[in-house]
């Protein structure tokens, strides 16, 4: 069993906490309780016959007052960038955060998700933009923490990437 630190990144209220809670405890709440600082959760998964303990750092969401500090990102073996399909501005935040993460932890695997797929009709993020992200070689998934769609796939996708990558790539200056 190996342990991996994984950070949840994204703008405020995009559904980071909801995704983690859906993944770890399979629960969802409509009530919005903003995360202050960090909440750590844990779940063990097995990919490619390798047991991984995913230690999930659910960070507070970035907004104009609070920028996510690289401090929390240190030592991550991977990260998840969350966007809210109904809010176009969360895409910009995601791009900025991914940049910060790449600068801090280096080229570790990451997956991005556009959340709230259950409200697809209200989405502001269109296919064109998503294509642009994929061109930057982002993994872009769709999902809904509310319905539980694409949640397990999201985390397992990242876990698989982390296992496949040779361990040396995790050691960085």
């Amino acid at each position, binding site marked *: 069993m190996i342990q991996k630190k994984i950070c949840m990144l994204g703008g405020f209220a995009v559904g980071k906490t909801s995704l983690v809670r859906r993944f770890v405890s399979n629960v969802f709440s409509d009530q919005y309780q903003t995360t202050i600082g960090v909440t750590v959760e*844990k779940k063990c998964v097995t990919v490619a016959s390798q047991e991984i303990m995913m230690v999930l750092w659910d960070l507070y969401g970035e907004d104009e007052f609070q920028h996510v500090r690289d401090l929390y990102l240190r030592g991550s073996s991977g990260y998840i960038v969350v966007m809210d399909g109904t809010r176009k501005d969360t895409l910009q935040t995601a791009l900025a955060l991914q940049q910060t993460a790449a600068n801090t932890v280096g080229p570790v695997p990451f997956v991005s998700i556009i959340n709230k797929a259950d409200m697809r009709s209200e989405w502001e993020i269109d296919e064109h933009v998503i294509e642009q992200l994929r061109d930057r070689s982002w993994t872009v998934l769709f999902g809904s923490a509310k319905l539980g769609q694409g949640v397990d796939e999201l985390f397992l996708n990242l876990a698989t990437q982390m296992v496949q990558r040779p361990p040396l790539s995790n*050691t960085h200056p």
Partner: protein
Amino acid sequence: MSSDSGRSLPNSPTSEGFTSREEDWTQLRTLLLAPEQTQLDELRERLDHRMVHSQEVSQVLPEAIAIRGVGDQQLSNALTPYVENGFIAAVRKSPRAIVDAIAPIMGPAIRQAIARALQSMTQSLNRSLDESLSIRGLRWRLEAWRTGRPFAEVVLVHTLRYRVEQVFLIHRETGLLLHHVATDAAVVQDQHVISGMLTAIQDYVRDSFGASPDQTLDQVEVGEWTVWIEQGSQAYLACVIRGTPPASLREDVHDALAHIHALHANALADFAGDATPFKATQPYLESCLLAHYERPPKQGALKGWILIGLIVLGVVWWGWMAYQAQSRWSHLLDRLREEPGIVITQARSMWGDYHIEGLRDPLAKAPTALVIEAGLNPATVKMEWAPFYALDAPLVLARAQSILRPPESVQFHIEGGILVATGSASPDWAREAKRLAVLVPGISQYRDDGLVTASISALLDRINRTVIHFPSGSSTVEPSERVALDTVAAILRELDQLVSQSSQRVHLEVLGWTDATGPPARNLQLSQERAEAVVAVLREKRLDKAATVVLGSVRPLDQGGSNQESANQRVATLRATLTAQGQDSQTADP
């Protein structure tokens, strides 16, 4: 420099004009100074190539040090700082080698420390069992019962100064758990999440207060727990401590962390999520699981025992008193039940208060007297008696006495519901008694066959008619005459009774008589003697107290006549009269 000039020699003749003159000078110098030059070169060689020199020194160095060392301390003084510095440098450079070297010494020491900690824990557990018997123990039991916590935990909270319950070894950069130990008693939540949170908290605090990386969070307090964080370069230790740890514990934690860093430097540097290698840190983490328990003051225990002793004494005393009161109470009930004229219908005792209800003949013995006799305080015994007539013989008798008021000369006794009166009484009383007796509760019949009834005058008359005969010339009362005197005595007694109510007394005169024969002087004397003899007999019957007896002497009856007549004159006669009291002394003296 010198080697440059040496090398320039063969190159010099190549170009310039005055080369030949230079050559000559050199040749001349060589010729003149060749031996000196060789020596000079040799010396230079020596100076330049120290190795040669060192080789020689090395041959004498050990001896030199030995000789100097014997002489004085200067050599070791001079060397000490260098040796020290050298050692520090060596530790910095390869701590592992040093630790490897000293581990065999440290290992047993650490094991000993752990053993001691365990020992003290067992002792304190044993003590918690002892505690359960002391006053304090009882108080804690009460607290455990009240708060619903286990007794052992309550004891722990009260006696524990501190106890390190969990130790986390956490990778600093990732916040991932490297290893974790806990005492058996500790409640361990998800240690992986905790280690992540502990790391996140530190980051958060640093982020929020803008602290520099070397300013670290050392302590977190959560309820009765304190979390101590000891920072290391690659990993940090978090100790979850219950109670108030001493500052010296920091050093122990610090040492443990330093050892771990030294032993696992490579594993720490290469850590990529696999915590397996850090299982080996177990003994170091366990060495931090220290605890200290408070020793209860001895004196307190003594005080507790004295208190218990007093309580036991008190209980025993109370029990003894209760037992005594109880036995007094049952004794009182027995006595009351035995007592004629008292019937108990209800009796109960409550906390030293007693209550009796029943029936009581007004003539029965006063129950309060029995209460006092039984040793109980009459104030604590409440009694309610309903009056009734008892049929017990003594009570019926007493009742008859109180209703019929018989004179002293009358005796009553009961024969199976029949009241029997004996003795003598006035006809008036006898008649009244006969009428009332059957009305007395408990008496079915009245018998007074044995009761003599007579009026005072009749009795006086009977006395006065009594004549005691004497033989001729004798003053001795013949046995045949005594019967008459017995009757007199009885009548006198009766009279005495009868008159006792009035302020009268029976006055009795005894008169002696003689016949005419014989000289008158002798006759006078004889008559006197005869009267005295009668008085003496009456006195024998103890009538001196019952009646006043007056001795009378008279002249012989001045009567001539027959023998028969003279026999009639050899007598003593009695004259009983009633007198007012207080005249006895006058009449007593003739």
